[in-house]
């Protein structure tokens, strides 16, 4: 700058946002925080028995647990989308009395210990639960089945999708929907052609979070669904059990779970930037 006179075409400099640096000291706690999160991962890596790693993670029990985890997490993510998208739309786009309270209640599984979620599911869908008799009449036995695992995962993962998508819907605003409606589009058309494409990145990240949360689900599953190889014993349950007898296998499987989780988050970020 100095003596040069600003050109007319340039905006007056006092409207330019000043460059604000972050205070230097903030790097210290930030670094400590990062180390706190990353060091345990190093801890796991340091304990992995690389010599028989392949053998440990390809045992029958491990493979079945991983496959079951991927299968149930995919199904529960699907369930989260089917149930969560309408919930997010209703919460973000409508107003009715008690909405705030309802939102808080719907988000409850976020803060509830998963074991409590499992107990709640048990007393609702269990054999002697609230709906147990009705389900029995219909010939449905949920306890100790893979369906119970999917229900437990959906219960804990659903709020992640609803929160993400509701935020995306509010950020996107209503302008495009209003325009579409004023051009004669019916609500369903607006929803399908405008709303959903607009919030697709939010929906994607919500789905990925639900998947990640389902993948790690432990407490609600072991309480509600039980633990049987190939049917209800997902990867986290297998890790917890292996700890009893074979710490090496538990560590190896933990690493597998960490890698899958990192891949999922990484893919999601990739997907978001390309969208």
């Amino acid at each position, binding site marked *: 700058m100095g003596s040069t006179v600003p050109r007319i075409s340039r905006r007056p400099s006092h409207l330019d946002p000043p460059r604000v640096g972050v205070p230097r000291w903030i790097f210290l706690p930030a670094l400590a925080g990062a180390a706190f999160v990353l060091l345990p991962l190093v801890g796991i890596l340091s304990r992995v028995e690389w010599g028989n790693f392949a053998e440990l993670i390809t045992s029958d029990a491990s493979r079945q647990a991983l496959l079951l985890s991927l299968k149930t997490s995919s199904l529960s993510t699907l369930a989260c989308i089917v149930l969560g998208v309408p919930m997010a739309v209703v919460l973000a786009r409508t107003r009715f009395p008690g909405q705030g309270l309802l939102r808080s209640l719907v988000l409850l599984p976020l803060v509830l210990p998963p074991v409590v979620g499992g107990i709640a599911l*048990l007393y609702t869908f269990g054999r002697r639960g609230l709906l147990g008799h009705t389900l029995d009449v219909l010939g449905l036995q949920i306890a100790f089945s893979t369906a119970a695992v999917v229900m437990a995962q959906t219960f804990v993962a659903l709020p*992640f999708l609803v929160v993400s998508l509701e935020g995306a819907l509010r950020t996107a605003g209503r302008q495009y929907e209003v325009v579409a409606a004023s051009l004669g589009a019916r609500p369903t058309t607006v929803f399908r052609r405008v709303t959903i494409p607009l919030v697709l*990145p939010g929906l994607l990240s919500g789905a990925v979070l639900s998947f990640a949360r389902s993948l*790690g689900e432990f407490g609600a599953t*072991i*309480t509600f669904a039980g633990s049987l190889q190939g049917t209800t014993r997902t990867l986290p349950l297998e890790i917890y059990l*292996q700890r009893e*007898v074979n710490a090496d296998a538990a560590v190896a499987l933990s690493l597998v779970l960490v890698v899958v989780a990192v891949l999922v988050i990484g893919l999601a970020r990739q997907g*978001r930037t390309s969208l």
Partner: protein
Amino acid sequence: MKRRFTTIAVIALACGTAACGADTSDAGGGPSGSSTASGGSKITVYAAASLKSTFEHLGQSFEKAHDGTTVEFNFAGSSDLVSQIKGGAPADVFASADEKNMTKLTADKLHGSDPKVFATNTLEIATPPDNPAGVTSLKDLADKDITLVVCAPEVPCGAATGKVAKAAGITLSPDSEEQSVTDVLGKVKSGEADAGLVYVTDVIGAGDAVKGIEFPESTAVTNRYPIATVAVSRNAALGQQFVDLVLSDEGQKVLADAGFGRP
């Protein structure tokens, strides 16, 4: 949105991969029981989860007999406790639910006194109070239509279950293999399972919540509970006195009342 995404991602992963809530069940474990008194001496007893009620009882009479002393407990699965002691946890006394886990301690020379068996436990069938499936014997459990829950073969009660089934010449097809005997009991109490195999002491401890059915084949497998002081103990003398209390007539009576067998 990006920031929101990242925040939630962190929560999701923290909760998820760390299996949150796992420790709220019965596996977890910081010391519980009596609070630390300033001044007086203190011992920390690591004991198998099945010893909770009896050892808390004995802890109270120990504190009464030794003025100014506090006894802290850490109750968890025996293998969890051994891993904690191996990791340097400050235990003075270790009481295991089976000899296998005590051997893990002695193999590493982490024991103080030589382990002594102070109690035994056998398996019993537990059903909901109304016994909906009409179970009367161990053989009934081989019926595939019965919703059966047992311990996983990897944990002591599951190993005992396997041996009992083998001795009786039957094949069990459980609907779930749980992590601990408390989990099995929970599934039976809630009526989710028609029957489960647990220890005699669990049935007595559960009171009216479950019905116990003894079976003759149970004598084939007896779990023996050993106790010893721990090498790292800073208060070995006091720890030894607690061990002596458990082995004394008073200790044996408390254990017998809870359903434990004599060594």
